[in-house]
């Protein structure tokens, strides 16, 4: 059999923000780069990011700086973020945003002509660079066009625009390959034809995004099937803290066809309020003690904050996402929800119609065209939707190198550690840029010092056999039905509120589906066959779900994006522990690993009374690790 073969220095899997930023960096370091995307170029889920990109440029409030951003990030993640990732992110985010401007990005401006910044949940100052509510689109388009700029440069120099960087669109990777314990490349198929492709490359950057499709109600597109998480596990890498999933508090709940689609947090940042079916602005009841000094406990003060942020506390609608999601969940479960199982989010009473259309154009558009709701006149019905996975590949913070697999790198949502137990809105877009760049740079350094690592024929044969298998089976399981069953299990048993008994049941049921999935058969041919594509996506989602359920049962506390009804509060012991998932070829195993202690200079950025809410007296007495 002859298969299509390609040879590159760096292979980037995923063409969202992190992947493209990594590709730019590796190419600018002089390497030949292949970018693989499951869909068309420029369609990655990054386009969905609405609110903005958090960077402490201080354009709107000059009190902002990286230290404040670092503190907000650690606080938002309930002190479970890897301190070094949060530090690098806070320090480098402004440069990454300004850099985009030199590539042609056009952010909204302040009166002085600087990049405008908006308020967002958990951020102390206005910090999110934005373009209306389509910031993700601006990021991806800017980088897509930067890639084209690099290709044009290569074209001028070599006569071939694709000589240095080539995009392989609509291609799925089924295996990451290793030889002698190090990365050697990847194997996959063209979605269009089903034909198989081998990529030989000594460095692979995984930038595949999230896992939302494991769940029933999600803001993620079909691509969010945890491919990178599963590929990394199978290649011998670890996943860290997969129990932490962010349920975005405000997804659309009506009509059913748009269930799960996101309503950006900017709606609340611009003055939207949450009410239940009694008309009560309920968020005042849900301000946790740790946030009492930062959030207003009465409507008058909350309303004043929009005009005077220095002398008033913030409205509780802007609490971190996990708090708002749980509050909505409680309201609905207590019978105070809307007819369709959500709560009301209203901007129409506070903001003039023209301002809404100007500040939140895509939201207005989305509700008007998809749901027939005019948000300038009536309230939206919203509720929690699976939005983001904080857990991910365990990486070295400085290089984004996957722990334990030389030549493998991971950046963006697929990487773990940066956001701890809960991500702040706006931190994702700058996470992509900061760590995408670091992954690309480190991959380049790795390739220059390690050189080629050819793929063996045995590895190719094994990878090819796996792709053919579902076609050779007849009358087996249907991948669509198995996927739907998995989503029911995760939704009902591994959702926002969890218990040990339900998680145990989930683990058993996921294992059962996994066993049945070995017998998936596919009808039709190889050519653009979604049933065939889903068979591979399903395998990835099952591994992710197993890792999530097993990490969740192990963590006996409630923190950020992990709430246990049977262990309802934070536990100091668990603040010091990461759950590490690994794969032994049959099943996911979990072990506990100590979280690195925060060094003295970062420790001292916090008020000691705040740290007392999260840390043990012994930790505080030590005052940091050095």
């Amino acid at each position, binding site marked *: 059999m002859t298969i299509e073969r390609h040879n590159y220095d760096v292979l980037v899997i995923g063409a969202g923000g992190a992947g493209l930023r990594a590709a730019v960096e590796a190419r600018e370091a002089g390497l030949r780069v292949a970018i693989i995307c499951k869909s068309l170029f420029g369609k990655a889920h990054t386009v969905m990011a609405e609110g903005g990109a958090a960077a402490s440029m201080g354009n709107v409030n000059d009190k902002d700086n990286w230290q404040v951003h670092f503190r907000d990030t650690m606080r938002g993640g309930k002190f479970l973020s890897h301190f070094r990732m949060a530090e690098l992110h806070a320090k480098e985010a402004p440069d990454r945003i300004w850099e985009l401007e030199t590539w042609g990005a056009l952010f909204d401006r302040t009166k002085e002509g600087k990049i405008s910044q908006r308020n967002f949940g958990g951020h102390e100052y206005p910090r999110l660079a934005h373009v209306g509510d389509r910031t993700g689109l601006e990021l991806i388009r800017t980088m897509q066009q930067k890639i084209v700029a690099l290709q044009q440069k290569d074209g001028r120099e070599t006569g071939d625009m694709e000589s240095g960087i080539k995009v392989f669109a609509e291609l799925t990777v089924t295996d990451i390959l290793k030889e002698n314990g190090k990365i050697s490349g990847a194997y996959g198929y063209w979605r269009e034809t089903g034909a198989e492709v081998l990529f030989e490359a000594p460095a692979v950057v995984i930038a595949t995004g999230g896992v939302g499709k494991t769940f029933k109600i999600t803001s993620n*597109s079909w691509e969010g099937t945890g491919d990178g998480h599963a590929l990394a596990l199978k290649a011998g890498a670890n996943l860290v803290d997969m129990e932490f999933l962010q349920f975005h508090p405000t997804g659309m709940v*009506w009509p059913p066809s748009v269930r799960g689609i996101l309503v950006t947090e900017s709606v609340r940042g611009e003055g939207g309020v949450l009410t239940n079916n009694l008309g009560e602005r309920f968020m005042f009841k849900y301000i946790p003690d740790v946030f009492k000094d930062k959030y207003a406990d009465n409507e008058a003060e909350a309303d004043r904050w929009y005009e005077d942020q220095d002398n008033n506390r913030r409205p509780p609608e802007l609490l971190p996402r996990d708090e708002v999601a749980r509050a909505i969940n409680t309201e609905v479960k207590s019978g105070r929800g809307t007819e369709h199982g959500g709560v009301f989010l209203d901007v129409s009473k506070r903001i003039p119609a023209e301002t809404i259309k100007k500040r939140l154009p895509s939201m207005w558009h989305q509700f008007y065209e998809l749901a027939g709701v005019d948000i300038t006149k009536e309230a939206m019905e919203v509720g929690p939707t699976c939005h983001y996975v904080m857990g991910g590949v365990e990486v070295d913070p400085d290089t984004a190198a996957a722990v334990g697999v030389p030549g493998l790198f991971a950046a963006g949502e697929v990487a773990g550690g940066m956001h701890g137990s809960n991500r702040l809105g706006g931190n994702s877009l700058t996470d992509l840029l900061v760590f995408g760049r670091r992954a690309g740079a480190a991959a380049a350094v790795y390739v220059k010092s390690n050189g080629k690592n050819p793929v063996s024929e045995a590895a190719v044969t094994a990878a090819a056999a796996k792709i053919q298998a579902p076609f050779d089976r007849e009358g087996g399981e249907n991948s669509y039905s198995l996927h739907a069953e998995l989503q029911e299990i995760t939704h009902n048993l591994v959702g926002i509120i969890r218990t040990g008994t339900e998680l145990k049941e989930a683990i058993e049921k996921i294992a059962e589906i996994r066993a049945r999935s070995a017998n998936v058969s596919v009808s039709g041919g190889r050519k653009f*066959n979604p049933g065939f594509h889903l068979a591979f996506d399903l395998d990835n989602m099952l591994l992710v779900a197993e890792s999530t359920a097993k990490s969740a049962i192990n963590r006996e506390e409630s923190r950020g994006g992990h709430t246990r009804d049977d262990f309802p509060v934070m536990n100091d012991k668990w603040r010091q522990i990461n759950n590490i998932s690994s794969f032994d070829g049959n099943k996911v195993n979990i072990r506990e690993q100590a979280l690195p202690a925060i060094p003295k200079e970062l420790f001292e950025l916090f008020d000691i009374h705040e740290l007392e809410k999260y840390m043990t007296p012994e930790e505080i007495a030590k005052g940091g690790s050095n």
Partner: protein
Amino acid sequence: MARNIKLRIWRGDATDGGLKDVVVEANEGEVVLDVIHRVQATQMGDLAVRWNCKAGKCGSCSMEINGKPRLACMTQVASFGEEETITVTPLRAFPIIKDLVTDVSFNYKKAMEVPAYEHPQELAPGQARMQQVDVERSQEFRKCIECFLCQDVCHVVRDHEENKKSFAGPRFFIRIAELDMHPLDMLKNRKKTAQEEHGLGMCNITKCCTEVCPEHIRITDNAIIPMKERVVDIKYDPARWLGSKIRRREGL
């Protein structure tokens, strides 16, 4: 309330194909992409359709619905009559791969032909100052989600394969206009090259592109016509021609 609707789907590939009738359940509030997915999950497991976000933001599920280029995720089933058959076919201007999926690589080739943004060398990162009113003109064009419906509907290429070589299409006219109106872009002569290299002159302003744009970008009025007018100005007014050579930037 669920009801059964009649759907007619084009199935086949580059060599052969035709319309297939199916009856499928539709629920209240659903869009055409929802019912196509239901057909896929229950009746035609290998039905090919491109989609991503299902929220009108990525521009992947472009197809022709009752002959009109549209996003399937933004087309409500309820917008058709109860007894009406909804016919879905692949984009006509591009080669068919399979079923509702076409080969849109033409657009990516054209994207590579538009010279990239050039940032002023003296302006370090973070130093740029632009007024909102000045960035808004380009921002309108940067709303483009690259669904390529405008490319599909444009009659210059819709039934004229031979024109594709010399015609970039509305999507890339707005890309050129965006760069041309970008307050900082340093590359000169964008309007002139739009005319001479990207086929702007072949457009005869029928506004079909504007009509199908799901982002409501005023492609013809705000991008194509201003560029055409300026091309005329630059080409035939000697004083302005001279001015464009003397001034640092071409921007008018």
